[in-house]
């Protein structure tokens, strides 16, 4: 059952959900959650292609996912720090209300 296409379908679904969330929701933290979901979908693709690909001994998919998880962690930390810093200035996390360029 868990063939390549079903993995890719799950990944596409996750990516689209994340994309929809990031585009529709107006809270900065929820946008960040959407981006995390999209990153996870990409990771699932790497693992799926490693598992069902022609050359699994090379471990490239697994190692790329390791690095990707590391980058995602860094991205989350910096992103949330930015959100907190933004909140200090404008007292909101709603992205529609952050429309002034004055700090």
């Amino acid at each position, binding site marked *: 059952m868990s063939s390549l296409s079903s993995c890719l379908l799950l990944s596409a679904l996750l990516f689209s959900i994340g994309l929809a969330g990031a585009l529709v929701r*107006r809270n900065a933290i929820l946008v960040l959650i959407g981006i995390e979901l999209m990153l996870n979908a990409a990771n699932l693709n790497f693992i799926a292609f490693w598992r069902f690909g022609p050359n*699994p001994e090379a471990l490239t998919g697994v190692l790329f996912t390791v690095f990707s998880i590391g980058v995602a*962690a860094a991205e989350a930390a910096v992103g949330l720090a930015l959100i907190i810093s933004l909140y200090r200035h404008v007292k909101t996390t709603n992205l529609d209300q952050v429309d002034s360029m004055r700090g």
Partner: protein
Amino acid sequence: MLFTILAILTVAGAVAAMSFRNLVHSVLALTLAFAGLAMVYLQLGAQFIGFAQILVYIGAVAILIVFAILLTRDAGTTSKSALNASASNSSGWGGGVVAVAVFAAMAWAFHASAASQRALPAQPEATMQQIGNALMLQFALPLEVIGLLLTAALIGAVTIAMHDRQETR
């Protein structure tokens, strides 16, 4: 069969995370999606990635998001205008349409591609020993770069989030 259950769990968690009004509920649903994804990794034979996913995403990223929510005082108070505001301006529907279109395009691509018709190969080996060797020999430079990136991110995050004492006084 197991994969279907896990996939449904993951997608349900993701949908819930993106649609709940309460931010903390969103994060808890997000951890469900992360956990489901970790199980999928385990089922695909990537033990290391599955456990790393739990450790990093549930143990660190979710907790970090929770902290950010509490520090920005959105906990408890549901973001009233989150959906209403977006529905009133057209970007809300636009975003949904774009996401559906992206999904349709990707699904069509998978369906049409020849790669998905290939037979199931044998379970590949990915022991911790192999991963460790690859990380230390073949992928040593990327590993160092990731280390540098994480250090930079750590310092950067602290600098950005640190309270400006002079300004607040």
